[in-house]
């Protein structure tokens, strides 16, 4: 089949809302876009282990400690599925990790904020995972099959994470005055960065239009942001916590909540590398990777010896 025919077939699959599978022909730009998006997503899961992992050794009850350990472990698992999904596009996990460590691929800028108190664990679960789910549910219908299927499982687990965050904050908000203040402070710090997780406003988003045409993305940044705000405002009321945006109010005509403008300069600064923890997060990942090098080499050396012995015996 010539190039034009392959392209027609690809477009027909997209139009029919079918899934593109690894063996199917796809345009180079489609492949590149997916590699960029899936690896960025995988890196976010892995870097995202750090801010919450920061509280594992200090969790204030055994029940909370077990939940937090399981949650951070889920994130490692999500990273694994996603690296596998990326590998179906002809890249290797090791090279993607090298690109991350070299600062050549990004991860979600939300993880460049610090977790300063125990309540931050709850705020990440409720707000950050809540925003992530809003982003990821449409991805279960993404045109690329392996990514869509990975998202089904990831979304199920993320929804547990979001509920545990809500429940953690609920306990704090109804606890002692000090616990309530801790919860409010965490929400004050995590609200705006979470609203900005959907990326720049539609007019400034460079990738949205093409990604929507390819049905990788189903909704624009601003549509998803609105959906998140609409979902979260009533939950904040249930929690008895205040979202730090005086402009939030129900708009009867639109059938949505109005809300204030994000500080887009801050988002740009954090994405460019100047958030509170960019350097720390990457340095931690690089250090763990380098300290583990001799272990990976030993495992490979042992496997080679074992294979040599097995073939000599045969």
């Amino acid at each position, binding site marked *: 089949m010539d190039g034009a025919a392959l392209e027609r077939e690809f477009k027909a699959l997209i139009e029919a809302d079918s899934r593109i599978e690894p063996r199917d022909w796809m345009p180079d730009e489609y492949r590149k876009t997916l590699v960029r998006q899936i690896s960025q997503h995988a890196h976010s899961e892995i870097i995202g282990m750090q801010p919450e992992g920061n509280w594992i050794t200090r969790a204030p009850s*055994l029940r909370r400690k077990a939940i937090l350990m399981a949650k951070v472990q889920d994130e490692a698992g999500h990273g694994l599925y996603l690296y596998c999904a990326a590998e179906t596009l002809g890249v290797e996990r090791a090279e993607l990790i090298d690109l991350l460590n070299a600062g050549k691929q990004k991860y979600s800028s939300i993880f460049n904020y610090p977790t300063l108190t125990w309540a931050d664990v709850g705020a990440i679960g409720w707000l950050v995972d809540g925003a992530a789910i809003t982003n990821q549910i449409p991805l279960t219908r993404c045109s690329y099959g392996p990514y869509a299927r990975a998202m089904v499982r990831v979304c199920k687990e993320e929804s547990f994470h979001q509920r545990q965050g809500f429940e953690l904050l609920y306990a704090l908000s109804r606890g002692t005055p000090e616990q309530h203040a801790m919860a409010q402070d965490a929400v004050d710090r995590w609200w705006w960065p979470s609203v900005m997780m959907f990326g720049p406003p539609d007019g400034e988003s460079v990738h949205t239009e093409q990604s929507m045409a390819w049905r990788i993305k189903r909704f624009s940044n601003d549509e998803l942001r609105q959906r998140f705000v609409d979902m979260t405002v009533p939950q904040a009321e249930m929690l008895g916590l205040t979202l730090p945006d005086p402009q939030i109010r129900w708009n009867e005509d639109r059938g949505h909540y109005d809300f204030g403008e994000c500080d887009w300069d801050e988002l740009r600064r954090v994405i460019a590398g100047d958030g509170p923890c960019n350097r720390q997060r990457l340095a931690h990942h690089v250090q763990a990777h380098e300290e583990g090098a001799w272990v*990976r080499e030993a495992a490979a050396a042992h496997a080679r010896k074992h294979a040599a012995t097995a073939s000599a015996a045969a």
Partner: protein
Amino acid sequence: MLRLADDCFVLSHRLAEWSSRAPTLEEDVALTNIALDLLGQARRLYEHAARLDGTGRSEDEYVFMRDERDFVNCLLVEQENGDFATTIVRELLFSTYQLGLCGALRESADATLAAVAAKAHTEVTYHVSHARQWTVRLGDGTAESHIRTQTALDALWPYTHELFESDDVTPSLVADGVAAAPAALMPEWSASIGTVLAEATLERPETTWAPSGGRRGLHTERFGYMLAEMQHLHRAHPGARW
């Protein structure tokens, strides 16, 4: 009971310190899995201990409100993670002991303890297999991994003597069919470790130093730092619920 619970809890805490630091993602998941198994075992044992000692204490009171001198875990489990070889060797030495212990306790006259031991036995079987596979890979891997693993073995070996010690309370518990005689677990442990060391091309350390005291609340200096970090938040809010 508290000894078993503290062993499981303290090792779980140490393993959880690996989160986001392991050499591969698969190992990050595996080490946390083992830590979660041990934490689950500890929680069931604390619950049982509270009934037996009649205090009705919660699991959190045992973990967050006792001081260093009240913890009765063995010294081996509180040793710091060190490099990956140290963590794996600690896992091998302890989990092999724990597997024999759980095997014996499945027959305990204390029905609750027997049930906890039976469930733990299945979990610990996996921990032993994980530790054995890695000990062989590292021991018989590269020159560097061999040296690191032998060094870890030499450093941790002295702490294994304490696992098989008896004290004043042990004989009566053994006589009542509740506990297992520690010394009786030694031959099988030694044989099992022997086979894996041979496969891993590692030398069994020769040492006369046999540090002890964990069962009497005499711990290593680093243990206090572990408790300080772990307990501070819980203690900073007396009576709060989380």
